[in-house]
């Protein structure tokens, strides 16, 4: 199994840390992983994306031009990455702020209203965990128990008190993802 994912959105949405949790979850079940961010002077509000690969085999290139899954969290990322999903692949997006919805018919499209849900839950920082839950519902590439372990590993000790909130958000993501 090899899953090649691009997660793309705004800086501050937790794009990079979501990728990190996913990568750590893969490590927890002895898989090979890579995490490659777009890096640069982008700060909160700028674009941010990360390529995550989880595989049973040694990973070749950490940078890719097409993906098994694109997780898209703003319009700019939709414009840039919809076309990069491999035929038969998966596109998961949050419709919040999306004007031009995806139009491809050769891929599987899902949506998760994570921004709205996070606000409703009173936990805006749980946004990325809702998205991660939605993704792993659609593509269960890592076991749930390993997500918990991965979450714990990727958070510094001083943030461990947020784990229950994050797990709750994650569980909510599993519930609210919809196929289009």
């Amino acid at each position, binding site marked *: 199994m090899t899953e090649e994912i691009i997660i793309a959105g705004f800086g501050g949405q937790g794009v990079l840390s979501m990728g*990190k949790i996913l*990568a*750590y979850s893969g*490590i927890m079940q002895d898989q*090979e*992983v*890579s*995490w*490659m*961010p777009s*890096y*640069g*002077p982008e700060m909160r509000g700028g674009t941010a994306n990360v390529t995550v690969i989880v595989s049973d085999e040694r*990973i*070749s*290139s*950490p*940078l*890719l*031009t097409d993906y098994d899954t694109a997780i898209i969290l703003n319009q700019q990322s939709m414009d840039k990455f919809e076309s990069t999903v491999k035929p038969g692949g998966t596109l998961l997006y949050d419709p919040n702020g999306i004007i031009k919805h995806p139009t491809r018919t050769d891929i599987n499209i899902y949506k998760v209203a994570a921004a709205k849900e996070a606000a409703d839950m009173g936990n805006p920082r749980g946004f990325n965990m809702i998205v991660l839950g939605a993704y792993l519902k659609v593509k269960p590439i890592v076991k749930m128990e390993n997500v918990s372990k991965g979450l714990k*590993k*990727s958070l510094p000790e001083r943030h461990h008190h947020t784990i229950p909130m994050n797990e709750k958000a994650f569980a909510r993501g599993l519930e609210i993802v919809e196929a289009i």
Partner: protein
Amino acid sequence: MSEIRLMKGNEAIGEAAILCGADAYYAYPITPQSEIVEYLTLQQPEKRTGMVVLQAESEVASINMVYGAAAGGKRSFTTSSSPGMSLMQEGLSYIAGAELPCVVVNVVRGGPGLGTIQPSQADYFQTVKGGGHGDYKLITLAPASVQEMADFVPLAFELAFKYRNPAMILTDGVIGQMMEKVQFPEQTPRLTDEEITEKYPWATFGRKGGRERNIITSLNLKSELQEQFNIKLQAKYREVEKNEVRYEKIQCDDAEYLFVAYGSSARTCQKTIELARAEGIKVGLLRPITLYPYPYKAIDDMTSQVKGILSVEMSAGQMVEDVRLAVNGKVKVEHYGRMGGMVSSPGEILEALKTKIIEG
């Protein structure tokens, strides 16, 4: 070995340095290697091992701080990215000329000038052909994974002290910024001052026990003596070339074509091999791990087997000159690579293999 960790290549450099018993780190921040400076200031290695971490006022200062500590027999290192590395060339030439051991990491970005902060491999010439003045060489290691970033720090120190020569880890923004699994060895204790006195009788730390004075210098006003020194230095480099060539061959057994690539380009080439072989094109990869000394012979040996070689590097074509030297006209050699911080995609490389080598 430690538990498996998920870390950026840059952070792995920092952690590996602490664990291998480095004594001092002097550096100046620059993208895309600032994580090393940040990691090492955050880790407070002065509390873990007594290792010194100091942010210098410039790369000129940091390489000279390394000079001072290295001249005292301590394991010191610095890190930077391309524009900062240009500033260090003076210091590197002096360090090579004074035969001091140290480690320098260049997380390469696109140039020339201020260029871009995105990944590049266009500092190859500067590194292996001598960016500073005079006849000198840097032992150069090119990691292609986060694990190698970690592994090559102790290796670089080992080679640096073995040959009393600066050792360079030449990497790029991809390997520096990416996270992968990495495992570290147990902590190696730093050498005590007594051990340094014992192991490095050339070092300057005071005339212990009234011994004769030690002098660290690269100056020789008498040309006859300077030439003798140059001859000695060259003899040392021949030893390095004899003993330290390192490379990896991937899917070369049945290869009809060959990629030569190091660092992140080697990773992209591995992906390209998957694509090519799916189309029935038998291509392999020879990945130089040491860029100096360069695996000329290993590449030459492949010429009896392959019909053509594509050198892949994120540059206008620097390493390709060494591939051509190795091949000496026996088979076709071409270069492919994006520049300016653009990373070649596996699809582009496959296309280049077809047009430049197979059909060309």
